[in-house]
């Protein structure tokens, strides 16, 4: 596609529910990042994929968070037993190779609100 797309754009859920957030990267980009951004803060690194594998998931806050990228393209961030503190904008970015020289292109984000 022309750019990184994310769905849904907004998600409102109740505490304790399960949610899935989807990211469709730029075609041909092997690297994919997930970030979480709270109001007034910079994006916080969650996980990095290179191809189908999670090359670094050290930013995931706890085991309620999980992400997959089964075919090396679309990725899904899954949050179990959501808590009010999970409310944030979840950003996805992709880059050509994931190297120091590669630009990250960001999607518009998914605004998650946990009531």
């Amino acid at each position: 596609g022309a750019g990184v797309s994310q769905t849904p754009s907004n998600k409102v859920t109740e505490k304790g529910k399960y949610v899935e957030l989807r990211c469709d990267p730029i075609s041909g980009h092997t690297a994919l990042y997930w970030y979480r951004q709270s109001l007034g803060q910079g994006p916080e690194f969650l996980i990095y994929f290179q191809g189908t594998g999670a090359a670094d998931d050290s930013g995931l806050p706890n085991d309620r968070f999980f992400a997959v990228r089964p075919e090396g393209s679309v990725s899904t961030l899954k949050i179990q037993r959501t808590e009010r503190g999970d409310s944030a904008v979840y950003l996805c970015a992709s880059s050509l190779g994931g190297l120091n020289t590669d630009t990250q292109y960001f999607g518009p984000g998914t605004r998650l609100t946990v009531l």
Partner: protein
Amino acid sequence: QQPVQSPQAVILREGEDAVINCSSSKALYSVHWYRQKHGEAPVFLMILLKGGEQKGHEKISASFNEKKQQSSLYLTASQLSYSGTYFCGTERIGNQFYFGTGTSLTVIP
């Protein structure tokens, strides 16, 4: 682990210059600069690598001092469109990518 930016906020009149600084406590391999407007995703400005300096736009340039683990973004003759929050981003050992604390820039007529 998060790079620290200064100033936190700055207000400029059109045509004025500004410098935004980014400092890390860890060794850096590269520094990226992004601008984010309210309600939008971050947009890439430029990347600086060890031993080099890269200019991404005519009136926006940056420097990278790997010894001091610092980078600075220079905005000259600011325009209204420059308003937004500027983030530096650093990639270190491994694959983590960390954004800085952010600098809010407001350009007024």
